[in-house]
């Protein structure tokens, strides 16, 4: 009965979604306040029924109800309870259910936190979100229903969850990733509402900013979790592969980052308006494109879902309708929202424009790289398939990010409208000297090696950090006490600086770990050892160890420093019973300054195995930086001015654009 209840709840949710996409919008067009007001209760109902549907599927998983085909394919009685629950989103159907649940959740959140918005805007935003939900619910119910039954011949045992997914990192990765992907639907809906009404002012940007920041923060965490997972679960010790599935999650992130910055300009200065709209549409479009690529099996990848061309076609149709119509609307309506303010050289606007160009170019080149095997095939036929490897991405991406880092530091001291070159130079002189000195001296002193690209990356990281520090000092210089000055700065200012600091931390981590990691794949017999830097790794042999639903070949690797025992690592090779799949489990000692990484390769006779031994300095900083970025986003969301400043649209509209920008400039200069 429970799966039927879930199915029924999902169908009711579909009905509510259809109503939500029609009624509030129709109300907004006809001025019917009652219909407009229906958006909020409908989105609440949608959320409740989606939650019910999701709970029913979770119930089926937890109770090993193998009469549900999806459960039979992705669970097993021996599966630990925790992974049974995570199995709900372990394959295509269930993860799509999670996707729609989160979509409904964001819609409900908009209805909850929008009491300061004019009703007609709320109605339009919720209607657009209703349309998106309708599309994905139709897709779920008619091509990928997770509640489909195997009543005729119910299996007594399930086929088990893919062993790759039986891991903490990957169980929490999809929810965060989807929170990010789907979260961009809010900015998207705001953009459509702005295009429909033709009203795009500082207030609009102020409403959109916290939603964009929140979605971006979730996406940051989601991507970082995915990278962390591939680092320790794939057993290669790499943390980014430029795999199509990684690329499609990275593209919305880059465009989302551009959107955050362009929204700032649109709010404070009233320019970049149609550009901001295009970014808001693109961020969510790229999220949906990612969903399509992952779920259609179009491009081969490590973690693509099951291949089903029919589903791909339906998803492509949804994409065509949602993205196609919004881009068409954009083309027709964008001139209505044109900005009129001007800005001079070296102004903050110019710096943010550069930021946007760099991020969009980076996105375009990743998109091109991801789709190029397909483009090549379309031109030259199936005979000569190509693939694009990491060198392409690294050559393109690293210089772009280096330029971005340079402008990030420089822009810290820029002002809106106009900045004199003298002002910039005088502020940056000290920062430049300090960062160049430290960036060059540190690697020479600590690693005693001359590595120009590592030095450049460190210089850029210090460049960002010192400009942040100098800015903090400048902003608090005239206050009664430093402490008071620091307290006086707003949360969104701290959020921004924290995210920028996170970027510096990531640059440091990426650069140091790629240049100074020592990676050795060695054949080791029991008792043999290998020394890397100060660490001696001694292989103690392999024993068999039973797990709940697998049998592990478990190795012991004793690590000692200068002959003193330090830690024992236990990398494993697990064979999962239900599918017979083999899975490498690396054992890593995570440290602030370096990770010790061991993974078991294959047996080479006489108890000897190939063992992967890596010492990776600063690799932890990659994820630390991502966390700091996300925390920065969260801080910015919590800024007071998004909540305690009710803005009446009518009042805003009465202000001429110049007054609007003066107000904005005034705010920046003391924020």
């Amino acid at each position, binding site marked *: 009965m429970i799966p039927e209840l879930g199915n029924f709840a999902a169908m009711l949710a579909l009905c509510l979604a259809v109503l939500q996409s029609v009624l509030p919008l129709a109300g907004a067009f006809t001025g019917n306040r009652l219909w407009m007001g229906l958006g909020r209760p409908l989105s609440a109902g949608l959320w409740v029924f989606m939650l019910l549907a999701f709970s029913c599927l979770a119930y089926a998983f937890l109770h090993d109800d193998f009469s549900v*085909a999806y459960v*039979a*394919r992705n669970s097993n009685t021996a599966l630990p309870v925790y992974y049974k629950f995570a199995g709900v989103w372990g394959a295509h159907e269930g993860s799509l259910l999670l996707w729609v649940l989160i979509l409904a959740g964001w819609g409900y959140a908009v209805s909850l936190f929008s009491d300061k918005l004019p009703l007609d805007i709320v109605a339009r935003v919720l209607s657009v979100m209703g349309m998106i939900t309708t599309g994905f619910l139709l897709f779920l119910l008619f091509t990928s229903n997770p509640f489909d039954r*195997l009543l*005729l*011949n119910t*299996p007594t045992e399930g*086929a*088990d969850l893919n062993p790759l997914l039986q891991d903490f990192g990957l169980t929490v990765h999809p929810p965060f990733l989807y929170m990010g992907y789907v979260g961009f639907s809010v900015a998207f809906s705001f953009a459509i509402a702005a295009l429909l009404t033709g009203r795009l002012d500082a207030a609009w940007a102020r409403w959109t900013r916290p939603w964009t920041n929140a979605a971006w923060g979730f996406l940051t965490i989601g991507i970082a979790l995915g990278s962390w997972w591939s680092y320790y679960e794939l057993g290669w010790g790499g943390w980014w592969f430029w795999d199509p599935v990684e690329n499609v999650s990275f593209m919305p992130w880059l465009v989302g980052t551009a959107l955050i910055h362009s929204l700032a300009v649109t709010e404070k200065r009233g320019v970049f308006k*149609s550009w901001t709209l*295009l970014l808001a*549409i*693109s961020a969510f*479009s790229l999220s949906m494109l990612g969903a*399509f690529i992952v779920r*259609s*099996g*179009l*491009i081969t990848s490590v973690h693509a879902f099951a*291949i*089903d*061309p029919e589903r*791909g*076609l339906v998803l*492509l149709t949804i*994409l*065509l309708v949602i*993205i*196609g119509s919004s*881009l*068409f609307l*954009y*083309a*027709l309506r*964008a*001139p209505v929202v044109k900005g009129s303010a001007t800005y001079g050289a070296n102004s903050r606007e110019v710096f943010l424009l550069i930021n946007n160009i760099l991020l969009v170019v980076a996105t375009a080149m990743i998109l091109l790289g991801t*789709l190029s095997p*397909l*483009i090549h*095939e*379309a031109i030259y036929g*199936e005979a000569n398939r190509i693939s694009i490897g990491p060198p392409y991405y690294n050559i393109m991406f690293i210089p772009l990010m280096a330029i971005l880092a340079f402008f990030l530091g420089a822009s810290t001291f820029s002002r809106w409208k106009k900045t004199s070159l003298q002002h910039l130079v005088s502020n940056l002189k000290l920062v430049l000297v300090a960062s160049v000195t430290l960036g060059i001296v540190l690697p020479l002193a600590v690693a005693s090696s001359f590595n120009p690209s590592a030095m450049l990356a460190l210089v850029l990281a210090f460049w960002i950090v010192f400009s942040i520090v100098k800015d903090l000092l400048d902003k608090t210089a005239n206050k009664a006490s430093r402490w008071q000055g620091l307290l006086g700065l707003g949360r969104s200012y701290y959020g921004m600086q924290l995210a920028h600091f996170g970027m510096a931390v990531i640059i440091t981590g990426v650069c140091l770990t790629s240049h100074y990691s020592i990676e050795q794949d060695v054949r080791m017999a029991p008792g043999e050892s290998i020394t890397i830097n100060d660490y001696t790794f001694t292989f103690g042999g392999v024993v068999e160890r039973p797990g709940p639903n697998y049998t592990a070949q478990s190795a012991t690797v004793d690590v000692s420093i200068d002959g003193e025992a330090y830690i024992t690592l236990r990398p494993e090779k697990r064979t999962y019973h*239900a*599918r*017979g799949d083999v899975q490498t489990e690396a054992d890593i000692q995570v440290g602030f300054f370096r990770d010790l990484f061991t993974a078991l390769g294959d047996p080479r006779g006489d108890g000897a195995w190939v063992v992967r031994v890596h010492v990776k300095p600063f690799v932890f900083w990659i994820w630390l930086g991502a966390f700091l970025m996300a925390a920065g986003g969260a801080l910015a969301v919590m800024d007071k001015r998004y909540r305690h400043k009710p803005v009446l649209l009518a009042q805003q509209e009465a202000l001429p654009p110049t007054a609007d920008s003066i107000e904005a400039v005034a705010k920046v200069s003391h924020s």
Partner: protein
Amino acid sequence: MSNRAKLFIPAVFFVAMLGLLFYGLGQNPNLVPSALVNRPLPEFSLPALFETNGVVGSEQLKGGIYLVNFWATWCAPCHVEHPYLVEISERETDITFVGVNYKDDVDDAREFLGERGNPFKLSLVDANGSLGIDFGVAGAPETFLVDQSGTIRYKHVGVIDNRVWDEVFVPLLAELR
């Protein structure tokens, strides 16, 4: 170019990309028909699964409609597919179901069919996947529909369930009968 026209660039770009994706979907390996479709059944002679020393040869598959299903006990989707095959084989009595046990443990396979019902009138063992190569099989389950003249008419990759049967096989069979 006028400013108005420039605003259509994103839409045009998107439509072009969508066209590419649509093309790519058509190139999907599942949609590409097997090289063997509309060709005669490859010749083979392989051990039977149940009779010791028994042999099943391609000459036995002549003069009727055959459904050749590649399956294995290690293949999770085959477990999902199995009950449907049992049910369909009971209903469609004029079709001979042929099971090719693909790269599998023979004892496991016998036990599996014994426990869950055997939809196959003929069962053969392709221990090293050689028949699979002749058929162009990339994995399991894959199913081939062979007509009265011994010509392969259709190849299905993946699970056959009631929906696939009704939507794909029933129309094809209507043509053949």
